[in-house]
């Protein structure tokens, strides 16, 4: 039957029974329950107001039922968000302005561009900082200061400035904002990663009379890879936030950020929440993609743990 030798891989059901999925599912259930309770609580005001105006007094069951189906709820119930999300993705043509796939693609483009720019910039500056004491002292403080400026204050300026220098469209300013948010975690992690080899390992290369370049490519770079991938996960999520923030200032009509803004400005909370969840799902997919890349890279480098060889 289910002999261990015949079935060495555990099915997902076995994992559920093994207890790994149970805590995950419990937390998920708790969130949904709290969400429903909050929806009832927050949307009840509207229901009671309407009832008062009509001169009726609803029962508790009627209140609960009404809070689940409002057209413009303060807090939409989970199933409402799910329905809207379904309607705006699966049920639309992907080229439609009402499709979140369309808007998601717009945001994704700026995210990927910003992510790549930010990652390249972060790694490049980190390499400079690790090799030059002067750069460490002169650049690092500015990198830290750059992150203390709220991006929502900076984003409109970047958009106005890039328009002023004659750049059409929003892709470039969005890429800049996205890169601005994503370079920093990469920079910080890579500085740490490139410095991670200890004195003994550097001494070893010194005994071989290795050059600075050789030390970099044979020791520092491979040693920094785990740090690199940890940073990539943070950076890809930050890039997405950057791209969305770049879509928030007035004028944008495309992208998940624009959908969120439209939803909130036109009093369509369901549109806003659907866009919000689309963004969260996109972020999740991006992080998982980076995670898979990490697994692949670490497996090629023979690292145990992390899903490599057992």
């Amino acid at each position, binding site marked *: 039957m289910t002999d261990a030798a015949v079935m060495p891989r555990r099915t997902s059901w076995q994992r559920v029974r093994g207890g790994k999925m149970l805590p995950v599912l419990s937390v998920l259930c708790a969130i949904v329950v709290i969400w429903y309770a909050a929806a009832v609580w927050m949307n009840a005001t509207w229901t009671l107001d309407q009832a008062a105006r009509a001169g009726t007094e609803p029962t508790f069951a009627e209140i609960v039922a009404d809070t689940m189906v409002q057209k413009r709820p303060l807090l939409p119930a989970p199933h409402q968000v799910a329905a809207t999300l379904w309607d705006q993705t699966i049920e639309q043509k992907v080229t439609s302005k009402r499709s979140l796939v369309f808007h998601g693609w717009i945001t994704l483009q700026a995210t990927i561009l910003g992510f790549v720019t930010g990652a390249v910039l972060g790694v490049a500056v980190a390499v400079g900082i690790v090799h030059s004491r002067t750069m460490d002292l002169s650049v690092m403080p500015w990198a830290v200061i750059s992150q203390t400026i709220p991006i929502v204050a900076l984003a409109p300026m970047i958009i106005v400035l890039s328009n002023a220098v004659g750049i059409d469209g929003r892709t470039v300013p969005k890429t800049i904002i996205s890169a601005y948010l994503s370079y920093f975690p990469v920079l910080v992690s890579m500085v740490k990663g490139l410095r991670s080899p200890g004195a*003994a*390992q550097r*001494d*070893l*290369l*010194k*005994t*071989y*009379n*290795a050059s600075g370049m*050789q030390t970099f490519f*044979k*020791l520092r770079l*491979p*040693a920094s*890879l785990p740090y690199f991938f940890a940073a990539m996960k943070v950076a890809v999520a930050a890039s997405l936030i950057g791209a969305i923030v770049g879509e928030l200032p007035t004028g944008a009509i495309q992208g998940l950020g624009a959908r969120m803004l439209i939803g909130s400005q036109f009093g369509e909370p369901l549109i806003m929440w659907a866009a919000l969840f689309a963004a969260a799902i996109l972020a999740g997919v991006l992080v998982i993609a980076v995670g898979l890349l990490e697994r692949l890279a670490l497996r090629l*480098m*023979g*690292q*145990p743990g992390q899903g490599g*060889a057992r």
Partner: protein
Amino acid sequence: MTDAPVIEAKSLDLTFQTGDGPVQALSDINLSIARGEFVSFIGPSGCGKTTFLRCVAALEAPTGGTLTVNGMTPDKARQSRAYGYVFQAAGLYPWRTIAGNVKLPLEIMGYSGAEQEDRVRKVLELVELSGFGKKYPWQLSGGMQQRASIARALAFDADILLMDEPFGALDEIVRDSLNEELLKLWARTQKTCLFVTHSIPEAVYLSTKIVVMSPRPGRIADIIDSPLPAERPLDIRDSQIFIETAHRVREGLRAGHGDAA
């Protein structure tokens, strides 16, 4: 072969400037090591045995006296890749296979691909790790990892092998067998070995010359030319001559401590 010493130290001094003021790590070290010798450095922590090895490797710069390696300054010797250094921790790169790790110095020194393969195969055979080339370090035991690190130091054919407590972190059973292998290796390769250790039996078993050191300041307390025969099975450690030599080392260590107190 010439009779000129491979390593020669004359009134060598090294003082570290630390936050608590200067610390004299080496004081008036006079030592001459001939080609093919196996020299152990033994003494308590802080006696400067590792520091001396690092001076030979040009990883530390002496503040006084002279030190020559193959007739050159240590730094020149390092640049001409005169020695292989084995550190206390194997320090293998986890992202490289065993063969990849042994290949590391060869890549840096610019050996051709075919030559690299050839040398890796030979030295892995020498340390009895043939067939483990494709394994990653974490798949090997501590003793095997340290053997791989010795192979790495041997790969580029330096005549001097510097070993800083290479077996210090291993258990005694593994250590015994590695000591026996190291002696065979030394006999086969005819390299000049400098070996830092905490263990009296290890020093006596391996060496043709034992340098007993004492701390504060780090100095040589005694230099013992081993009376043991070249052929040394493990059970030589029960012989009278072995016990006498070990006793003399112990006396030297005790005298060194007495001076310091």
